[in-house]
């Protein structure tokens, strides 16, 4: 039986990208997942203005950035890849994928970019950036789920 949820998270598991065609791709060696709504900003200025005289957030387009070390995925998930969903589980710090873990699912997703980097005396890593659209323009493509 699991202990009470710690309300803190450590590690990511079950990270997978389901392609519109071609099936599911497991993303292993995950180091970090960044998750945000990515607000869209509109600014306006004119004449001799130095600062914008108008700055508003007019929308949002969810963004997920995955850092991993599996360079073999660079071609499998390239910039032409369309997905039906991407999901991962943010594990509870005590119970792992059990009580306290939260699963995030991004529907209608696509690969924005997939880049590799190499560093001095450090393992090379890859950065996979995903975005998504909303089916109806009202409902976020990002869902949060827990087992009941």
């Amino acid at each position, binding site marked *: 039986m699991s202990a009470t*949820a710690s*309300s803190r998270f450590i590690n990511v598991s079950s990270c997978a990208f389901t392609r519109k065609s071609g099936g599911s791709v497991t993303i292993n060696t995950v180091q970090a997942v960044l998750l945000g709504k990515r607000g869209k900003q509109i600014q306006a200025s004119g004449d001799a203005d130095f600062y914008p005289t108008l700055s508003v957030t007019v929308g949002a387009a969810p963004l997920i950035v995955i850092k991993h070390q599996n360079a073999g995925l660079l071609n499998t998930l390239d910039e032409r890849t369309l997905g039906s969903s991407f999901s991962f589980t943010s594990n509870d710090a005590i119970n792992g994928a059990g009580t306290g873990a939260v699963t995030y*699912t991004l529907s209608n997703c696509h690969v924005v970019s997939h880049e590799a980097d190499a560093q001095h005396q450090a393992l090379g890593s890859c950065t996979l950036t995903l975005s998504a659209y909303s089916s*109806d323009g009202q*409902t976020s493509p990002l*869902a*949060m*789920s*827990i087992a*009941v």
Partner: protein
Amino acid sequence: MMRPEPPIDAVLLPAGYGSASARAPYWALAQLAAEFAPLLGVRVLHTRQLLDGRTLIGKSLDETLNYPQAHPRAGEPRYTWSIRPQDDGVLYGRRVGAD
């Protein structure tokens, strides 16, 4: 004889619903699961935020507030909403159509 109410397919929560002590992602979801999972008859609780800050809880991952763009009824409401007896801003939704 009264006809039985049709089952609830979705729940719509006002922005900020839930106790302030349950703002951490898991506890917020756990609180919602305790309250709404039995009502929806689900083993996994899925939540999605709406444009205006409200939260939609559906029976599956594919739920959206309105019919999706690719659907013949695009933009039309997917549910009919009713205020629950507690009148606390929570709405119970029943699907308009089968899909």
